[in-house]
């Protein structure tokens, strides 16, 4: 659906490349994430992919057609959620949606979209009076207005409380379920872990690794389980056991049979830990 080969970009006047020799391929119906700290090149890559930044080198193909060969009809097929809310502040939420929606030929369900993100009762309020979270949610549904085949979402949950973040993530997963291809940039490892089929770590404009979150966590974690148990009275003990042949590990089995087990955790790494291990950088 989306393919980038040797994609390189440098901002005019800058001495460093914001994107260096990026190679990735996103399959139809996949949620693909770019995970990296601020300034890593995530938004730059998205801006290149949606045609906002020109002057890149390398090849980009979207829906089987070179990005350079697309005319404005391209934007009928892609929906774009920007990181920062950008609306007409003097218009209501509904007026904003109607104005932008009027440029697309597909039928739109403005009220349905507003309801999905909890903004139905605010549909006729002036956006200037919206909180940041409300503006972010309005931004998000604007990307879905025309039912596009591909979604580009830049930090879709930034500025949202857990409840609204959950709503947005559920909608993203619903979109995937109906076959949409989704490109997400985020510095939030939990979102990436929860949403993405595959992720790429990007640092200083370079892709360090591309893999499924599950595989990354397995590859970089310890193949052990940690057991926390009460060893008589108030004393709590912690022991680790290798996962290999754990069913034949007599000590492990004894604990399960004879002690009061408080918790058992596999020792796979978190994405945060994997990121630090692979890139040597923090996700902030």
């Amino acid at each position: 659906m989306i393919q980038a080969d040797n994609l390189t970009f440098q901002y005019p006047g800058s001495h460093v490349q914001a994107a260096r020799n990026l190679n990735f391929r996103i399959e139809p119906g996949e949620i693909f994430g770019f995970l990296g700290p601020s300034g890593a090149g995530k938004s730059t890559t998205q801006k290149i992919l949606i045609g906002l930044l020109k002057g890149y080198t390398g090849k980009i193909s979207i829906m089987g057609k070179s990005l350079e060969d697309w005319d404005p009809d391209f934007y009928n097929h892609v929906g774009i959620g920007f990181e920062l809310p950008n609306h007409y502040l003097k218009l209501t939420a509904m007026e904003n949606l109607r104005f932008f929606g009027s440029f697309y030929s597909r039928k739109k369900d403005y009220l349905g979209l507003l309801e999905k993100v909890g903004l139905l009762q605010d549909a006729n309020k002036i956006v200037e009076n919206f909180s940041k979270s409300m503006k972010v949610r309005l931004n998000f549904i604007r990307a879905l207005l025309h039912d596009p085949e591909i979604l580009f979402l830049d930090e879709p949950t930034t500025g949202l409380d857990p409840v609204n973040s959950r709503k947005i993530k559920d909608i993203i997963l619903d979109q995937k379920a109906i076959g949409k291809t989704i490109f997400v940039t985020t510095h939030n490892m939990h979102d990436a872990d929860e949403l993405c089929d595959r992720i790429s770590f990007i640092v200083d404009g370079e892709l360090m690794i591309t893999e499924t979150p599950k595989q990354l966590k397995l590859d970089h974690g310890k193949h052990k389980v940690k057991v926390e148990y009460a060893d008589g009275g108030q004393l709590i003990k912690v022991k680790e056991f290798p996962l290999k042949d754990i069913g034949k590990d007599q000590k492990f089995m004894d604990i399960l049979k004879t002690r009061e087990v408080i918790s058992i955790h596999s020792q796979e790494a978190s994405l945060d830990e994997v990121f630090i291990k692979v890139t040597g950088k923090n996700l902030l």
Partner: protein
Amino acid sequence: MNRILTYSRNDMKLIFRDPILYVMLFVPLVIIGLLRFGLPALAEVFPDMEPYTKVILGTFCLITAMFPAYIYSFIMLDEKDQDVLIVIRVLPISSIEFLVFRLLFISVFSFFFTVLTIAVTGIVDWSPAKIITASLPVSLVAPVMSLFIIVFARNKIEGVTWMKGLNFIMFLPVLSYFIKGSYEYTFGILPLYWIFKMFEPGFSSIPYYINYSIALIYHLVLLLVGIRVFKLRVFP
């Protein structure tokens, strides 16, 4: 047609919900009224004004025609400030369509105010055809000015500074009426010189139709250059 309605409805909402822009829309009408009734009274008190009434008319045509430029510059600077222009860039329309509609609206408003200023004030006894044709180059000044402001100002405060600067330069050609001889033609480098000369040739011996043609072509060229620069700098 639908697209024109979409844009104009949106713009009207933006104008009528901003008290400053709303007032600006009606200021030209107040100016025209004051000119209609105030100028004859002033001419009676100061009879020396008589040779300059057409220069005054030209000046006020430009002043009233500028208000749409101020209004739309503020709207577009807001769009720039609030990153709405980026959203417009990712709509399935050609990058230039949005700008062309905006410039068209500015021009239509300017044209309306110019025709009204010439026709209502009664300073010149021009035929309707001459009023309409003379208003054409005047109605191109506002979109050119707007383009300059949108391209070079990064926010509303810078926009106001640009407006002040451009207004000062715009009215410099008035000085040409006080200079006799070929030196006055050095003001010809300023596009508005040719518009002023359409209204009142002063010491210049260049006929009306030449002044008119240069004014029209000069502003059309500036408009095309402005659109090109806008495309390069704002909608790259």
